[in-house]
Structures are given as C-alpha cells and as structure tokens.
C-alpha cells in the first residue's frame, strides 16, 4: 500500500517546473506542509494525473499511474478543476461523480448538511460561499470511498468550528489520506501521521509530527542535519536535533516558513 514518486518534475509552462525532481514514498496518512507557492497543489494535481507537463514516474500500489485506467475507488481528490463546469445543483454533480467512482451519496449529503448547511445539495456550486464550496469538495473526496484520498488545503476559508468538524471527518475516514496544507495547528491532533515538508518544489521527509517539533532550524551548515532544504537561491536551511532555533511547538513551526519564505 504505497505511492512512490520517482524523479518527478511537473509544472505548467514550457521547461519551467514547479516540482523539481521529487523522490518520495507515501505509505500511510500523510500531511504535506509547505508555504504558499512551494508546489503543494502541483504535487496533488500530479498525483491525480491532471497535470500537463510531467517527467518521472508515479507508482501506486505497484502500478504505473500513467497506465491506470478506469480504477474506481483507487484515488479521489478535492481539487475544484476535477469537477465538471455545471449549472446543475450540487446534488446532481455529486450523484454523477459518486455513482461513477463507486462512492456513497448519502454520506456526502449527510456531511455537507451537517458541517455546511441543509440547503447546500440543492444549490449550485458557484452560488456557494468559498467556505461551503470547500466543504462540498472535501465531502466529494471523502465520500468517494477511495483507497487514497487527496485533500488540497481542506480547511481553506473555513471558520474555526468547521475546521475542527472537517478535521474530525478526515481522521475518521478509513482511506489513506494525503493532505496538503500550510496550516500547522493540526499537527497536535495527528500524532501518528507522517509529515512531508515541501519547499520550492522539493519534498523532504517523512517525519512524525513529534520528531519535527523536536528539530531546530539553522541557516548555517550543521553536521548532524536530519533534513537540509535546498533553496532555489542556492542557499540551504538545515533541520537538526542540536543546532539552531528550536521549533518546539506548532506556533514556532511558523518560523520555518519565515526562514524559507523570506530567505
């Protein structure tokens, strides 16, 4: 039960890749943490097979993703571009997708009514607020009953209560979840998940949340570095157990973002 990414380059414009040679393996519930523009969404699109420019190989459960065809219940996602441009109410869009993907519409309806609003299924997707749209897209991914559920920024534009409710549904799901976010507070609730860091198109890890919080950040070379993050500028940021500013808790994890963003 693994997803292997082998030397993945992916992007949108000729020769300019956002992902720059990603080699990693996903074996269980995973959080992909990274600042804006680091390539989280591009990584999700690449895993879902909807990116245009791609080099390298993705192997899902031993099968090359490029040769995967008509495999319902293997992978699902919450990216808006995966869903048809339609003026139909959400319920028709959801039934269409979940029927084809072998998902559970009743669960979807329950989820959007409970976490969102009762009337969401009978409204059109583009008429919903950004937060409610996020809930619909998350619910579509979760209700598909896929083996791997890819959630890109699943808490975007959600109020604090709904964030907790969505997180609770995500953790209850039996699928293997791969969740990209730049929200760090949730690490406290996901102790047994793996964390991958994504910085400027390269993926690092995996680490357990506790291991990550035990590390220290340094911009100077460190001999016992657990991870060294290679920046486009040519510089590196080192994460080690001994030298630098301690991350220590999720609030100070934001320091890492500051270092890699404002290098």
């Amino acid at each position, binding site marked *: 039960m693994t997803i292997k990414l082998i030397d993945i380059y992916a992007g949108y*414009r000729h020769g300019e890749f956002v992902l720059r040679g990603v080699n990693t393996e996903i074996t269980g519930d995973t959080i992909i943490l990274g600042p804006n523009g680091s390539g989280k969404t591009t990584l999700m699109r690449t895993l*879902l097979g*909807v990116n245009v420019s791609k080099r390298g190989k993705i192997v899902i459960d031993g099968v090359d993703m490029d040769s995967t065809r008509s495999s319902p219940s293997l992978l699902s996602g919450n990216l808006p571009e995966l869903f*048809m441009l339609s003026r139909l109410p959400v319920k028709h869009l959801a039934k269409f*997708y979940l029927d*084809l993907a072998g998902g559970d519409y009743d669960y979807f309806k329950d989820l959007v009514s409970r976490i969102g609003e009762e009337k969401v299924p009978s409204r059109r997707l583009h008429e919903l607020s950004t937060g409610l749209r996020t809930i619909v897209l998350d619910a579509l991914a979760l209700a598909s009953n896929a083996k791997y559920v890819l959630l890109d920024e699943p808490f975007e534009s959600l109020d604090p209560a709904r964030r907790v409710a969505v997180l609770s549904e995500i953790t209850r799901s039996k699928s293997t979840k791969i969740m990209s976010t730049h929200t760090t507070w949730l690490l406290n609730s996901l102790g047994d998940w793996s964390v991958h860091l994504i910085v400027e198109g390269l993926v690092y890890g995996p680490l357990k949340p506790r291991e990550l919080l035990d590390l220290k950040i340094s911009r100077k070379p460190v001999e016992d570095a657990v991870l060294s993050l290679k920046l486009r500028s040519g510089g590196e940021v080192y994460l080690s157990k001994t030298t630098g500013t301690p991350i220590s808790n999720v609030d100070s994890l934001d320091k890492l973002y500051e270092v890699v963003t404002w290098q």
Partner: protein
Amino acid sequence: MAVGRVYRFYVRSILSDGYMWFWAVAFMAFWLFMGAYVYGAGTTIEEFSKQFPEGTPGTIINEAWSKFTLHYTAGWYGSIALFSMSSVTIGLVYYIFYSTIPIRYLTKYSKATTAKFYTGFTLAAITGVVVCTIVLLVTTILLYSYRFYGAELKDYHGLPVPVFKNLVLPENPVGVLATTIAGGVLMYFIGATVALLVIVLKKPRALGLASFLPHILSFGLGMAGLIATGGKVHFSPYNTILLLNYHYYANATLVLDEPVTMMWRSGLEGAGQVLEPSTLWLALLGWILLFAAASVVLFKKQRGVNVEQILSL
C-alpha cells in the same frame, strides 16, 4: 451503466442551460415570427391569386397557395433548425473544452472509459439538439398555420381553445427527425473539433471566438444557400441539413443551381438539375465522418490545457 450516467448528467446540464434555451430556441422562435409576420407581411392568398390569369378556378389557386405556404414554411423551418443546431454547438464547444481535465481524472479513477464518456456525451448532445428542434418544429407549425390560414377560438369545457383551419404539417416527419438526429451528430463533432483544436494549438484564450465559428459559418453558408446562390454551397455541412429538412418538410424537389427560396418554382416548372436527397445524405455522412475522424485525431494528439490556464480564463 457509465454511458447512461454520463448521458443523464449532460442531458440535464444541456437542458437546464438558460443560455441554450434563449439562443437556440427563444431567439430562433423570434426569427420564425419575423419570417411569418415581417418578411412574409404581404404574402396573402389575395395577393398570391393576382399572379394567376383571371378566371382561374379557385381550386387551382388554393392548391398552389397550399403548396406555396408549405414550401415557404419549410424554407424557414430548414434554416431556423440549422441556426438553432449551430447555436447549441457554441455551448458544446465550452462543455468539451472545460471537460478535458475532469475527463482525464474520471477515466483514470472511475468506471468511465474515454469511449463510454464520449458516447454518453454525444448522445446527450443529440438529445439537446432534437429537443430544441422539436420545440421549433411545433412553433413553426402553429405559427405559420395561424399566419396563412388563421384559427378560430372554440369553447372547450369553458376554456377558449384555438382551432386551426389548416395545419402546415411536414410531409415526411420521419425524414425531418432523421435529419435532425444526423445534424445533432454533425454539430457534436464540429464542436469537438473546434474545442480540441483550441487545446492542441494551446490557444485557450481563442476559445470565445472559436466557439462562435460554427455558428458564424452556418449563418453565412446557410443564408447564401437560402437566398443568394445555388451550386456547390448546397454541399457544405450546414447546407445539407438545411436542404434535407426543407426537402422532407415540403416533399420538395431540390434544384442544384437555385437558392432554396427559388427551388419551389423551378421544381414545379421542371427546370434545373435535380439534386437527389440520397446525394445530400452521402455528403452529410461524409462530413460527419470527416469531423469525427478530425476529433479522434485531435483527441489523441491533445495533452490537455494547463490547469492554470483553464482556471485563469
């Protein structure tokens, strides 16, 4: 099952599209009205009978009037049905273009294969075209029957119901339906060719202009064949639909060198080179095969549009 699911989704999408109902039905019904009451304002049986020598029996004049109104109605229905179909194509271009990413996702991670997906989509497009043209056909019959023959209001259980004195019905409704279905298939493949061409050429910003090309061409070629000229223009993909609808509606003799509006007279006089409907069917099928082949080639060649580009449109 996947074909049925895709079909139901797209039929619902197409038939609930307000733009389609406005442009392909309401706007076309407006032109039918123009044909009946503005362009045909002076066309009355009294004016028509003045063309006959004095003393011509009324039965002959009535028969000629009946033929004339049938051909006039058929000409308007043929052209309006064509313009309605090409209006639907504008929407189809957008549906096909914006479906490329969802299709890539669905054909990997759902029961839908590419073939099943496009079969369902094509059938839905044909249904959309057939529904629009049936609404326009009924509108044509009622409007032109009332215009040329009038109606009386009769009391039916306390409700006033119009009873038409004569209905200008199509002579061969099966032929009209067959032409409509073939027209729907052709329009789908023209739409697919245009949308996929935009993708292959990597010019997503040209989508707006490109989506109107089939409609502009249908209008230009259709009007040329309707009122301006005959000859080769009748074999264009659009004119074959117009002519076949005209032929089946009025059981008209098709004359190659005449525009449609002149065909009824030439047909009666036996002048000009007769164009067999079977020749038009061959031309229409040829166009369908050509655009279907172009769609398949372009589909295999396309690698999709960048997600970022689609989202930025």
